[in-house]
């Protein structure tokens, strides 16, 4: 099993009121349940089905993912910085496993 590794790109500093771009990526095969392996056996479904991004405990955005999302799900989205704080990112797999990553932004 390949290792599932979340990665995020969040600016360390920002001006108050600035809209910054957040980039997230998690290395994950996103097995759709339709592909077959080298021996012709169906690979069971195993995907990241949900992603959430929160800042200082308030949800900024979330995504519900289906098998049609590519392997290594990647997202970019904007965020308006109003105060210093911590971004928490969480990815949830089909079996309930959660993968987490945090990043700080400071204003000033």
């Amino acid at each position, binding site marked *: 099993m390949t290792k599932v590794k979340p990665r995020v790109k969040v600016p360390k500093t920002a001006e108050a009121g600035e*809209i910054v771009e957040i980039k997230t990526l998690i290395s994950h095969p996103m097995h*759709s349940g*339709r*592909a*077959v392996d*080298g*021996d*012709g*056996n*169906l*690979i069971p479904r195993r995907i990241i089905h949900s992603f959430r991004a929160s*800042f200082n405990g*308030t*949800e*900024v*955005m*979330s*995504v*519900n*993912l*289906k*098998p*049609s*999302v*590519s*392997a*290594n*799900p*990647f*997202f*970019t*989205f*904007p*965020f*308006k910085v109003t105060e210093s704080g911590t971004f928490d990112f969480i990815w949830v797999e089909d079996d309930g496993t959660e993968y987490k990553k945090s990043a700080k932004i400071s204003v000033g």
Partner: protein
Amino acid sequence: MQTLVLKPISRRKALSYLGVAGASLTLSSIAFAGPDEVNARISAITNGAAGDDTLITLDLPEIAENGNAVKVAFDIDSPMTADNYVKAVHILADGNPEPDVATFNFSPHMGACYASTRMRLSKTQNVHVIAAFSDGSFGNASALVKVTIGGCGG
């Protein structure tokens, strides 16, 4: 959707059968969502309301060489304030085994409304993006993506 009767054989084996029995029959027996199912999904999301097709700017390739990772990006004209923002954006594809690709749930904290991701497209098909605004209205946009090599495994 449940009629996946493709036998679990390798692509190599499948190709070797081609000359004998015409494996194209086997391959084409995967059920795809189709435009009707996608239109039904869109009606279910919008409750039948006609969406404004001027608010969403789509960034999709005209031709995708590799259907395993097709970039899809959208930019939606919205002030993203507490009383006027985009609540959700649905990405749908009418030629994949199931119509839904991803649903984004947004909040005014974003300050702007755009996002991008990568999706699988099994064949040449239309991609639809439906935006649900906080006032109950909808926006829609769609584009045809030509896929050279499909990306649904198998």
